[in-house]
Structure formats: C-alpha cells, structure tokens
C-alpha cells in the first residue's frame, strides 16, 4: 500500500500547487512584501543604515536580508512558488482541456444551445428552405461551419464556431511569465553588471562589478577618446557623449560615439553612457619649480565678495577692503598638514592692519583649505596658467544573455493577454422553423467559454445579417 500512499501524497501536492488560492496568496504576498524594498532604500552602504535605523535596526534588516530584499532567499522563494504554481496549474488544466482544444470531431447538441442564455429570436417573411441556405452563407463568414444538428423536436439547426484555439490564451500568458523568470535567471547566472570610470585618453580592460564581488577582466580594452557635455541655455543637461574605442592587442576593433539611450553593443557586451566627472588637475612634474604666475583668490567674510589677483613668489599683494597685505613667501612641492601630505603648496604671510602676522599654508589642489582657519578672509592659491578641464566618463558595462528570452516573453505576454481577454471560443447555432404559410422564425444561439456580453453582441450581429440577407425582418 506504500505505493498508494505515495500516490495520494503526490496528488495532494499537485492539487496544492495547482490551486488558484495559492496563486492569489502568492500574488498578494509578492505585492505586499515588494513594498518593503521601496520604503527601505536597497543596497546602501552599511553606515547609511546604521545612521537611519541604529545598529540594532541594521542587524535586524541584515538578518532578514531587507537591505537587498529582491535578491533575498525568501523573496526568490516566493517567485519560485509562483512559477511552480503557474506550471503545475497550467499543466493540470491543459491536460483537461487538451482534448477540447485539439479535437478533430467536436460534438454539438442542439439542446445545449437551447439552454444558453445568449439567444435572439426574430421573424422573417421567407420560407424555411430558403432561409436555411441564407443562414449557412451568413454563418460561413468569419465562422467555421461545423454541422447540422437535429433537435429532439425535429427542428434542425446549423452550427458553426470560431477561435477554439483561443482557449490556449491563458497558457500563452503563463508561458510568458515562466520565460520571464527563466530569462532573468539566465542573466543572473551567466551575465554581469559592472561599471568603470575612464579618464579621457586612457584605456582599461578591468571593470568593477555592481554587486561588490570584485572586478572583471573584459576580452578587450575600452579607451575613452573624448568626453563632451552639452547643456541647454537654462543649464539643464542636453547630451553626454563619449567617443569610445575597443582595443584588442593594441588594435582598434570597434569605435562608436555613445550617448545615453544609444549604447555600444559588441560581442554580447554592452557599454552604456552612465555618468561623468571632472578629473583633479594633474600634479606638477616631480622636482618642478613653482608655477611662474600664481592666481590668488581672496574671499572677504565681512562683505561676502571675492577678489582675484595675480602674483609670483616673493610678491606682496594689497588686500581689498583695507584688509591688509599678503606676502607669498615660498613654494613647497610636497607640504604636509598634521602628518597628511597636501601636495604642492605656497607658504604665505597674512597681515591684517594692526594685528600680528599669520603664517598660511595654501595647497594648490585644495582651494577650500584656508576656510578651516575661520579668519576674516579665505585665501586660495592656484596656478595662473589655465589648465584645460579634463573629464572622465563613467560607463556601465553589462552582459546579459537572458535579454533575448525576456524580450520574446514580452511579446508572448502581450499576444497571450490579447487572446485571453478579447477572444473567446464562440459557438453559434441558428434554427429555422416555419411560421404561418410563408414565414419563418429564426433563433440564433451562442455559447462561449468567457465574455457572454461579446457573444450576445455577436449573436445580435448575426441575426441582423440573416434578416438583412433574407430581405428584412417581418413587420419590424
């Protein structure tokens, strides 16, 4: 009896996974749990969570995988449950309806049509024999004529049908959902998603992966030849454009100017314009002397205005607003501040009228450095020889072999939805019985598996066509 028990358990399992109650529960659970990830920002740095929720709160979120919930085991399990539910349920139902959909000789009974709520009756001034032919012609248009049926009372009906295959629609939609999940899994298993910042004129073949799992070597190097940024008159960004070359063994194998919405796709790897940034000005060459001319920027905290002057080492400058003088004493190629290297800097002496001189260290690369002093003025020194602005381009680099499957699934889903929602298996039947000496009474019946209203409209339409073909309804 062990076999029987196993079968019973299997049956119970199948009916559990095939139940629509499970579908409703899983769909609503997915809907409710999905909200969490939109309220709690996902994949942030741990410090952000600790700051927002406290260390205990962060441990709680971490334990439940709520900081990356859409990839958490329990969320994936819900998705898996949905897929199993869809597959088992569809297979079960399809097994039952297979014979209905693919039968070679469908059976019809006039009594079944007569019980249908969808029917229209009208009278015509024509003999039944003539009308039967009209009925067949009208039903032949758009419908596939199937059979002539005889009722128990001897009255005959002509029956036809269309769109029997539309019963498959729901399985098409379900198939598309399974394909979507499959496509997503293919992408997750065999694809990658990374990013890389490349300064103009430089090349690299290594990208950082988005999920933080390290870096990845590409089969070619990406070189950023040029990055350009254009803006509208109102300052809003208009276009980000990177000129990209792909190199293999030092040879250019592909070139393209990419902009947002127009990526470079090469050998299954996609390169997207994603961000950009300004590079810090390049360091002066090792052992180089001080810049010949220095630009001095002075911000007066009193008036809030800023002033710009030029000078060289050894000069003494008069500060505006009667704030005193600034002498540029010396140039240090690598200065330090509390043990931290600051790079090249100028040492200067600031004298406010009637006050003791103040020694300043003004690093060329950190314009805001003097702000820390909280003095009456903020002084910054930069090289007066203008440096061309240099950019780096930020590229998103991905490979997703699942995209094809997903796109096919998209098309299949739309087709399936259209078939399921707007088509139905429609069977119609028209009977003609004599009325008086010359007239007839025609009844058109309809049976459908869904959307009775559309069926009723179709039946009414057929009735009008029959009446029109027979020369108009009697006395109407």
């Amino acid at each position, binding site marked *: 009896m062990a076999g029987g028990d196993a079968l019973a358990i299997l049956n119970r399992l199948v009916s559990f996974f095939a139940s629509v109650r499970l579908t409703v529960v899983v769909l609503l659970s997915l*809907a409710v749990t*999905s909200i969490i990830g939109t309220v709690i*920002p996902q994949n*942030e740095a741990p410090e952000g969570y600790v700051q*927002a929720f406290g260390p205990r709160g962060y441990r709680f979120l971490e334990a439940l995988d709520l900081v990356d919930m859409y990839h958490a085991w329990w969320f994936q399990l819900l998705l898996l449950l949905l897929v199993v539910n869809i597959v088992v349920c569809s297979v079960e139902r399809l097994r039952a309806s297979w014979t209905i959909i693919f039968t070679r000789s469908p059976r019809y009974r006039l009594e079944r049509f007569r019980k249908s709520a969808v029917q229209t009756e009208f009278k015509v001034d024509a003999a039944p024999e003539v009308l039967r032919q009209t009925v067949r012609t009208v039903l032949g248009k758009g419908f596939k004529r199937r059979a002539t049926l005889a009722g128990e009372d001897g009255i005959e009906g002509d029956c036809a049908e269309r769109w029997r295959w539309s019963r498959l629609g729901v399985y098409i939609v379900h198939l598309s959902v399974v394909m979507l999940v499959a496509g997503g899994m293919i992408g997750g298993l065999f694809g990658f998603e990374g990013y890389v910042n490349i300064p103009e004129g430089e090349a690299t073949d290594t990208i950082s992966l988005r999920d933080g799992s390290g870096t990845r070597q590409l089969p070619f190097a990406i070189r950023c030849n040029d990055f350009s940024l254009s803006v509208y008159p109102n300052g809003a960004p208009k276009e980000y454009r990177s000129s990209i070359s792909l190199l293999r063994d030092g040879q250019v194998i592909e070139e393209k100017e990419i*902009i947002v919405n127009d*990526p470079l796709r090469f050998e299954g790897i996609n390169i997207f314009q*994603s961000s950009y940034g300004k590079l810090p000005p390049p360091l002066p060459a090792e052992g180089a002397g001080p810049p010949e001319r220095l630009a001095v920027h002075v911000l007066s905290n009193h008036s809030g205005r800023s002033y710009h002057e030029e000078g060289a080492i050894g000069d003494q400058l008069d500060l505006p607003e009667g704030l005193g003088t600034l002498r540029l004493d010396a140039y240090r190629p690598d200065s330090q501040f509390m043990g931290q290297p600051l790079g090249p800097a100028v040492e200067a002496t600031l004298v406010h009228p009637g006050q003791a001189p103040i020694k300043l260290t003004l690093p060329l690369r950190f314009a805001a450095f003097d702000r820390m002093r909280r003095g009456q003025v903020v002084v910054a020194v930069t090289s007066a020889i203008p440096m061309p602005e240099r950019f780096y381009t930020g590229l998103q680099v991905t490979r997703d072999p699942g995209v094809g499957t997903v796109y096919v699934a998209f098309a299949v889903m739309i087709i399936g939805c259209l078939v399921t929602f707007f088509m139905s298996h429609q069977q119609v039947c028209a009977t003609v019985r004599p009325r008086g000496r010359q007239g007839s009474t025609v009844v058109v019946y309809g049976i459908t598996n869904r959307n009775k209203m559309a069926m009723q409209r179709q039946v009414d339409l057929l009735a009008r066509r029959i009446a029109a073909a027979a020369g108009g309804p009697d006395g109407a």
Partner: protein
Amino acid sequence: MTSSMLLSVTTFIYGLAAVCYIAGWIFRRPLAARLGIWSVWVAVVGNGVGFTLRWMESYQMGIGHAPLSNLYESLVFFAWTIGISHLVIEYRYHNRVIGAFTLPLAFLAMAYASLSPHISDRIQPLIPALKSNWLIAHVITCFIGYAAFAVGFGLSIMYLLNKLAAAADGESTEQRPADLLVLQLFLVGLGLILFRFILGWSFGVGLGAALLLAGLVDLGGWLLGRHQRVRTELFSRFPEPSLMDLLTHQTVMFGFVFLSAGIITGSIWANSAWGRYWGWDPKETWSLITWFVYATLLHARLMRGWQGRRIAYLSILGFVAVLFTYFGVNLLPGLHSYGAMTEQLR
C-alpha cells in the same frame, strides 16, 4: 492663445462637466445631463488641441518633443484618456450616471496640473535619459491603462454605493460596515488630494477640511437616504449591479493589457538607457505591485468566481496602487541616494 491657457480653461470645462453629470444624476434634470455631455466633448477637444498646441510650441522653442515628459504633461494626458474613455463608455452603454463618478477624476487630474503651485507648466527641454522613442510608447500605454483603471475604480465606488442603498431598502439583509468604511476613506482621500495637493493647504487644515467634506456628504447622504422615494430616484438610473460588475471587470482587463505593455516598453527603454531591463527601482516595483493586484483580481474572478463587492474592493485597492505608482513614489525617502552612477543621468 498658448497651450497652458487653453488647458487651464479646459480644467474648468471638465469641472463643469462633472458638476453637470452629478446634478443630472441627483436632480434628474435632462438639461443638465445634455449640458454635461456637450461639455465633455468640448473639454476632450480642448484637451486634445492643448496637447497638440503644446507639442507645436515645443518645436517653435527649438526643443521639440512630444508633451509627455513631465508631471504636468502626463497629468494633462491622463485627463484626456479619462475623458475619451468616458465618451466610449457613454456611447456604448448609454448610461448617464457613470460620468458623475469618472469625470471628477479627469477634473482633479487637470486641476492638479493647472493649479498646484508645485507643478510647473513650462515646456522644458528633454534631459538625455528621456531622449528615446520609447518615451512616447511608454507614457501612452501606461496612461491608457491608468485611465481604464480609473474608470473601473469609479464603477466600483458606484457598485458599493448601490449595495448600501439596497441594504437601506431592505432588499439585501447583508449589513456591510466595510462598504461604508471604504467609501469614507475614498471621500477623505479625495478631499485630502484636493485640499492638500491641489490647493496646497497645510496637511492639518487639508485633513480637517477633507473630514468636514466627508461629514457633509455623509449628512447629505443620510438625509436623502431617509426617504425611500429619493433613494429610489437616485439609484434607479444606476446601471444594473451585474452590468457595473461586468464593466469593472472589462475595464480592468483592458487596463491590464495596457499596464503590461507600459511596463514592457519601460523595461525595453531602461535596457537601452541604463543597461538593465529591470532594477527594482521604486517606480518599477510599484508598477509591478499594481500589476500583481490586478492579476489577483483577474484570477479571483475568472478562476474562483469572485464577483461584486470583493471585485470592487480589489479594483479600488488596485487604483490606490496606481495612484501610488504615479504620485506616491516621489514621496518615498532616500531614493536617489544610492547607485549615484546610474542615478546621475536620470
């Protein structure tokens, strides 16, 4: 005349249409109903002309693009799709009451666009991420879907009202305080949207005014409801409950196809802009939540035979999800603090 002026005028014509439909329903004046249908036509045409004009203006400014690129433009388009859906249903089902429940939504959308101090009606150039042919396909499919869901929502509210009236008439022995609660929440929510977000009042005052509004409507409803004759008059011209139920189901099916198409076109667009078709971004996630809710409704109905009240609840829940996808996502905390790389160019 500029498009924004024309669209502001259209706002009031939608308002007039809504008032006419409500008056036509409550006071049974054929004149009001006739004025209503005419004003809907004028509003829909004005809305369409305003949309086209705005499109042309953007080309005259040298930044030509379809007017579907920001909240103002999407609200205008949303109102338009609701207006057109209303006309389709009006002429197909010959019912003059449904408009009293759907047109206020078109009016609210337009009023929010035209009157809210937070929404700019300036024509702005497209930022790089929006420069895609998928923009038009995505916005149009989404908003046709949203409009269908809006009509389904109006029908569900009507269905619940009708149930309450039937209970008061003693036709139905079911006492459902839940119906009353849902309708209260709907009224307060509607009032809150009107006062807080459209007129820009503070939250406290807006909530107070919304509660007052709900109280007044309840009082009116109670006074009217005491008289059997008035009640009969009010509800006799509602469509049959079974028809409302059927129409809810059909509008949801229609909306579901377009919501699916909207999510799909959005995915394809995201894949060409950012290199991923799905990233669990809050907007994407909320559109999927909406999809789950309506998928639940369709399965419950087709496979478990749910009808009437339960379908109405699900349809209302679905529309709340639609509204959240549309407006609420902007209120969520800390959305753009992560993934600065991709967010930067959005």
